[in-house]
């Protein structure tokens, strides 16, 4: 079902994450190929965001190993993983509030992508344009509303020139029109051969992009594969309608 370990750009084996007595991730095995687009769904508290945080290096797993582009990155902090091309966005946006929209994105281009000044300008402007934020490039990020903050998360992550982008609910609260624009943006990223992992509750939006779907519940992957098959899986239905796999 998973991509073969040899062809995998990102693979995680035996991932556990505990916060005290609370087990949030319970033996996750996950692998994906370069340029793949994987959607992750699951009820609240399933451990989706925690999985993303562990993959991106925001915090270390309690057990297990993570490999990116063939190297073990389990011990590498987020800064280094970003520089290798593994970049995430945040579910609750974390803008640099005292800086302008452009400056937010410029930081990622010059430090995450490691670009020199002029190339970083170009990359930052390109990301803003792709996310439709050029017209508000000079606004202080703290003045942005939630939707623009989410867009900024995406633009900033893009400016770091990811080979694999981990998206955490960037589509929440969008109107149909806005969701359509977002899908177009993500499709453009796929044309640029960027791999995508996308956590989203709005499944019909997710399915326009994802070619593979993972469903998580209670810290485990309960289904993984072709999106329609996953959505029809009895375990997935039961996870959403209550009862749970236990």
């Amino acid at each position, binding site marked *: 079902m998973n991509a073969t370990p040899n062809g995998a750009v990102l693979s995680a084996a035996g991932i556990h994450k505990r916060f005290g007595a609370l087990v949030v991730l319970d033996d996750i095995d996950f692998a994906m190929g370069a340029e793949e687009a994987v959607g992750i769904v699951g009820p609240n508290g399933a451990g989706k965001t925690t999985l993303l945080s562990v993959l*991106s290096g*925001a915090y270390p797993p309690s057990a297990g190993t993570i490999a990116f582009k063939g190297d073990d990155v389990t011990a590498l*902090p*987020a*800064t280094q993983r*970003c*520089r290798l091309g593994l*970049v*995430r966005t*945040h579910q609750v946006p*974390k*803008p*640099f*509030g*005292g*800086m*302008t929209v*452009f*400056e*937010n994105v*410029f*930081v*990622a281009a*010059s*430090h*995450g*992508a*490691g670009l020199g*000044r002029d190339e*970083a*300008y*170009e990359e930052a*402007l*390109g990301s*803003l*344009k792709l996310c*439709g934020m*050029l*017209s*508000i*490039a*000079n*606004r202080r*990020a703290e003045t942005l509303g939630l939707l*623009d903050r989410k867009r900024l998360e995406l633009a*900033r*992550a893009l*400016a*770091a020139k990811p080979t694999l982008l981990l998206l955490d609910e960037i589509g929440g609260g969008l109107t149909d029109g806005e969701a359509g624009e977002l899908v177009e943006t993500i499709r453009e990223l796929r044309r640029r051969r960027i791999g995508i992992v996308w956590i989203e509750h709005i499944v019909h939006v997710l399915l326009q992009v994802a070619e593979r779907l993972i469903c998580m519940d209670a810290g485990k992957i309960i289904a993984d594969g072709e999106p329609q098959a996953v959505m029809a899986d009895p375990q997935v239905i039961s996870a959403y309608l209550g009862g749970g796999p236990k």
Partner: protein
Amino acid sequence: MNTASLVIERGTPASRSAGIGVLTIILLLAIAPQFLSAGAVDRMTALFIYVILAAMWNALAGFGGLVSVGQQVFFGLGAYFAIRLANAGLNPFVSLFVSAVIVGAVSWPISLFMLRLRNGEFAIGMWVIAALTHLLVNLDRLIQGETGTSLISLNVYDASTRRLTIYWLALASMTALLAILFSLLRGSTGAAIRAIRDNEDAAASVGVRVTGTKRQLFVLAAFGIGVAGALWLATAITFQPKTYFNVQWTAYMIFMVLVGGIGTFEGAILGALLFFLIETWFGGTGVWYLIGLGAAALAFSLLLPRGLWGTLEERFGWRLLSVGYRVRLPASAADPTGEAISPAPTAAHSEKA
């Protein structure tokens, strides 16, 4: 990519003339002693030291988010190492700067554990470091505990040579430190520093080396404040540990930065000037002076939380020594200082790459 036609602006016409203005002021200050009384020269030296202190604390707290109430540790060490070096036979003027380099070197190991602390813990932790260092310096026999000692070797120079040399050294130090700080904050490291201030986790997630960048700033601020402490010793001659390791120095830094405008390069300089004027006019009124300072700080933090310069910048779009970036957008090309560019979509480019 069709964004190539967009221009990133680092300054405004006002900021370019401000650069010329700054140069002119520094040149005028360099020849000013010819026209000033001895007392005025001493006061101006104090002003330069205040500017250094304010600029350094502002860089640390306003740009880097590292609020410390223990920066007097580097002020005191700057003076202490200068005493030690001069006592070992080094020329007293040379000692001042070698001392600051040592302060910078000492701040590096301190940063190893202090930068693991965040926010309030860091602020108070620095105060603890300062108190501890004060006690350690007291143990040095040369210092004779709280009795203190003097930079005796300066006495080989006659009073006016001494006064003028210290004045120029202070002016040169201030100019050089402000220039170093400005170029650091204006470069890509400066953008990383501000990003860390605003959100450390997010900064790490987009590839910013958080701890290394903080350390760079911390060591630079320690060095700058070390220079200030050594210069203060040169003007005062006497060294009593409790005067130099007094938390009042950090309180003054905080006052200058809050009143001037935290997080703006111009604000710290303006705040130092205001503090200097207040001290010059009211410094003789004893306890009322301190009460006035406290009341002013309180009023500013309640009524003008962005300080004088921050408020002016916000209201009028003034930017003289700006470290920021502006995208000159086609729709607003006529108004490059426009703060609030309309968020309405402005069909910037129609052609596709």
